């Protein structure tokens, strides 16, 4: 083909530069799955289902208002942190395994520069947020933990969107907004958490699945 269309040449260059330098190996189905996982985990805590292990009946609101015996609150808190960590670890594992599978299929090395840039931009805010949340727990400010996770996660998404799917930016802004609203209505933090980590991931996963994976 002869080079007589500068416009189309330039748009080709731009497209390929973008496509090749962005990390796009997330699986939509995996994102939906992490959303479901978050919803299930958070519902366990919120509605206090299935915890016949102890006779305690401490609700999330009670925990936040520190309305109960300190030992009981502590058990509930441990449970909450345990479930949250389990969700985080299993979600990351699912994402990693599916991304690896997808990259092998497409003949791409997973650990390329766009992948490491995406990880770094996501994890710096997440780590900062994680430490901040531990400090909140240390000061018994339980109510702010759920909103804080939303806010820091949102920041991570916004910054990683430059190196990955651009749609992550909008998801990030939405998580930030949810985080701020949740900080206002402290008692309902977990509900916003369910929306942010559950519903939003399911919707986002569907979007990625139908927009990119189906192709």
């Amino acid at each position, binding site marked *: 083909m002869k080079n007589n269309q500068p416009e189309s040449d330039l748009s080709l260059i731009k497209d390929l530069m973008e496509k*090749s330098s962005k990390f796009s190996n997330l699986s939509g189905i995996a994102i939906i799955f992490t959303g479901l996982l978050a919803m299930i985990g958070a519902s366990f805590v919120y509605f206090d289902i299935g915890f016949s292990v102890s006779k305690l009946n401490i609700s999330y609101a009670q925990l936040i208002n520190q309305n109960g015996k300190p030992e009981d609150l502590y058990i509930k808190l441990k449970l909450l942190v345990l479930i949250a960590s389990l969700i985080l670890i299993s979600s990351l594992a699912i994402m990693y395994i599916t991304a690896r599978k997808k990259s092998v299929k497409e003949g*791409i090395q997973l650990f390329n520069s766009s992948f490491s840039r995406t990880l770094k931009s996501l994890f710096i805010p997440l780590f900062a947020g994680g430490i901040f949340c531990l400090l909140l727990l240390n000061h018994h400010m339980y109510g702010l933990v759920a909103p804080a996770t939303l806010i820091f996660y949102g920041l991570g998404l916004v910054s990683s969107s430059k190196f990955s799917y651009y749609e992550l930016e909008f998801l990030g802004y939405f998580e930030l907004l949810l985080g701020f609203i949740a900080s206002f209505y402290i008692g309902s933090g977990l509900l916003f958490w369910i929306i942010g980590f559950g519903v939003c991931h399911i919707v986002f996963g569907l979007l990625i699945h139908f927009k990119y994976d189906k192709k």
Partner: protein
Amino acid sequence: MEGYGLLNKSFDSRVRLGLMSILYVNEWVSYKEIKNLLELTDGNLASHIHALEKINFIEIKKQFIGKKPLTTYRVTNIGKKAFKEHILGLEKLIKI
């Protein structure tokens, strides 16, 4: 029409243009990755890679990952400069 003077004949083909675009913004990129991004067949891509390598616009690294051979490519400084000028030329042509 000063834009034409900046255009490089080596980038006449859209495959080479695409190849250079990918290598310009990335470090070492594998053959398979390039092939998928450009949606090409083997023979087609190989000849263009060879042509660009011949004029020292790209360099090739062959290595083994375990038992599998892995060939990756990178743009050279000469290639970078030529490609930059070519883009500049294209932009100037649009402005006229």
